[in-house]
């Protein structure tokens, strides 16, 4: 079976600091997979390695069977990555930014209209990005990531900087795209509620290691608690 993401014994050093310590997990095609953990746990590093930005110190990472180091070019054709702190080109309008991205992905310009719809920016889509608030920029970037209908969407804290209403809107959009277009999603989040709501399966990560993997229901049952926060606390052995 070919996994959307296959990670085997992944280790990553930054100088002498071990950021990832023999990390292993799989993401199945079509599922929404959540990486949950505190700051510095290794979520972003894992996503950056999957997105071909960083190279593993050792171990293997494959996306739909393609090795992220040896076949990075092939991997990039399948993915769409949303970094936690991302920006868009200031002097382009929102629409021009989406059109630019559509050209790079060689997809029809009609898709841009879909991007405009996902963003929910309305008339503001024709304003320059530099006039956008943080939340508007984030919605544009989410739209950019999803409109290309990648095989794998890598979303690092997708609702970061969004207010409650817009965060809900973005969550619904991610869910809709994953189900309607068969987009596999791997996302990271601090927000346990978000993960419970969105993800089919969850991996709890702490200090570069996977602590638990499973569906929310499985994890709740295993630890006999009511929510993922409590699962996490129990799994890492208390705060």
């Amino acid at each position, binding site marked *: 079976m070919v996994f959307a993401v296959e990670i085997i014994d992944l280790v990553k050093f*930054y*100088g002498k600091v071990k950021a990832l310590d023999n990390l292993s997990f799989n993401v199945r095609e079509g599922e929404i997979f959540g990486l949950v953990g505190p700051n510095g746990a290794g979520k972003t590093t894992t996503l*950056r390695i999957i*997105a*071909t*930005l*960083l*190279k593993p110190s050792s171990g293997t990472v494959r996306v739909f069977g393609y090795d992220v180091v040896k076949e990075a*070019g092939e991997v*990039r*054709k399948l*993915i*769409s*990555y*949303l*970094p936690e*702190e*991302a*920006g*868009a*080109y*200031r002097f382009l309008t929102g629409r021009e930014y989406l059109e630019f*991205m559509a050209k*790079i*992905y060689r997809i029809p310009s009609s898709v841009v209209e879909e991007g405009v719809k996902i963003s929910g920016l309305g008339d503001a889509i024709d304003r320059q990005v530099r006039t956008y608030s943080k939340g508007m920029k984030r919605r544009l*970037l989410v739209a*950019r990531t999803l409109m290309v209908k990648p095989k794998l969407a890598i979303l690092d804290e997708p609702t970061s900087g969004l207010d409650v209403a817009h965060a809900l809107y973005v969550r619904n959009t991610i869910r809709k795209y994953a189900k309607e277009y068969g987009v596999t999603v791997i996302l990271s989040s601090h927000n346990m509620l978000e993960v419970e709501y969105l993800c089919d399966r969850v991996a709890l990560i702490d200090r570069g290691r996977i602590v638990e993997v499973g569906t929310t229901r499985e994890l709740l049952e295993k630890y006999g608690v009511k929510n993922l926060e409590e699962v996490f606390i129990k799994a890492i052995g208390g705060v």
Partner: protein
Amino acid sequence: MLLSLIIAPLLMFIIIGGIMRFAMATTFKEALEKRTIYIVNNDLGKYSEMAIDYIKDKGFDVRVFENTNAEEILSKSEEIDVIIEFPKGFSYNLSNGLKAKILTYASIKGLSIGGYAVFGKVSGLISEINTYLSRVLIREVVGGIDPDFILSPVVSKSHMYISGKEVPETFMAMLGFFSAGIIVAPLVIVTTTIGISSSMIAVENEERTLEVLLTLPISRFKILLGKLIGVIILVLIATLSFLVGFMFYITAPIAAFEELPKVGEKSLFEASPILTLFDLQTIVLTVVAVFFTLIAVGSLGLLLGSIAPDVRTAQTYIGSLSFIIFIPGMMLMFMDLSKFTLTGQVVLVALSPFISPILVFKALLEGVPWIAYASLIWTIAFTFIMVAIAAKFMETEKILTLQFTLKMKALRKKR
């Protein structure tokens, strides 16, 4: 960026040049058009009268004061700015074979070029009086001989060659401006290129667009190439804008002189056939040098930009590099290549990826072709090395992690 690179230099030079041209033309014109000459004649002899008649014949309106103090008149009058005085004994001296004095009193009203222009006009007039009286005295003393023959028995005719091609004598007057332009323009192009290219990557860091860019389905080499082509196009437009502005600026004084009423028979600054000096080989090799230098320094700029967290930091890195470009550049402006020792010439060739257009051009013009060829070969090799390093760097994760590594190293050093 458009404003600072293209419009600003053009406007800056045109405005400064225009102001200079207008101010100079107005001041000189006003000074030269004042046709009233004030004279204090305390001599009242034959030769001072002849000199005054000579000035009147030149079309000037002459006001003469007799037996008075020139300084006093000058200090009391608002209108008079220059007075010529023929002192007592002027004619006596000339009649007895002794040198005679003409005194000039000038009141400079402001520290502008216009003040000097008035004084210059009177000095020119006194020099003409000197020649006129020489002719008179020669006729009186020698007689029968053309005074011009005695005054200047030798006629000089110069032939000036650059690269074996004769250029008009008037070219000398342009040479200073010309060499400054030839050196300054490429230096500006090179520093601008490094500046723009470093900003192009630094701005991706600053705006947090780099990570997305690097995960797009487009090869890193194409990203590098796209950035380089963008830099080169922008730099070429900026260069053109700079050159247009710069040419306007350096020709402003010349244009101001040309607008003045002609005093002599011909203008000093005739259009010189400068372009005919350069053969096809010089032009082609210089263009090749410009092209490769732009790519080399563009790649270097992209590398520097990628280790800077923002545009301002990138510009700081560039600032510390500029001495490598400006020191040899300035030396080349003032010295011929033949004046350098062999070691000096080799050092220039070694630095030539940054100054290749100037070096190739100068070397071919000054007849030291080995320097031109060596510079070109090294520049092309350097370009390939820089592009390869930049491409390799883009492929690795260092483009994202180097800043962090450098920051950590700096912190450790502080501790």
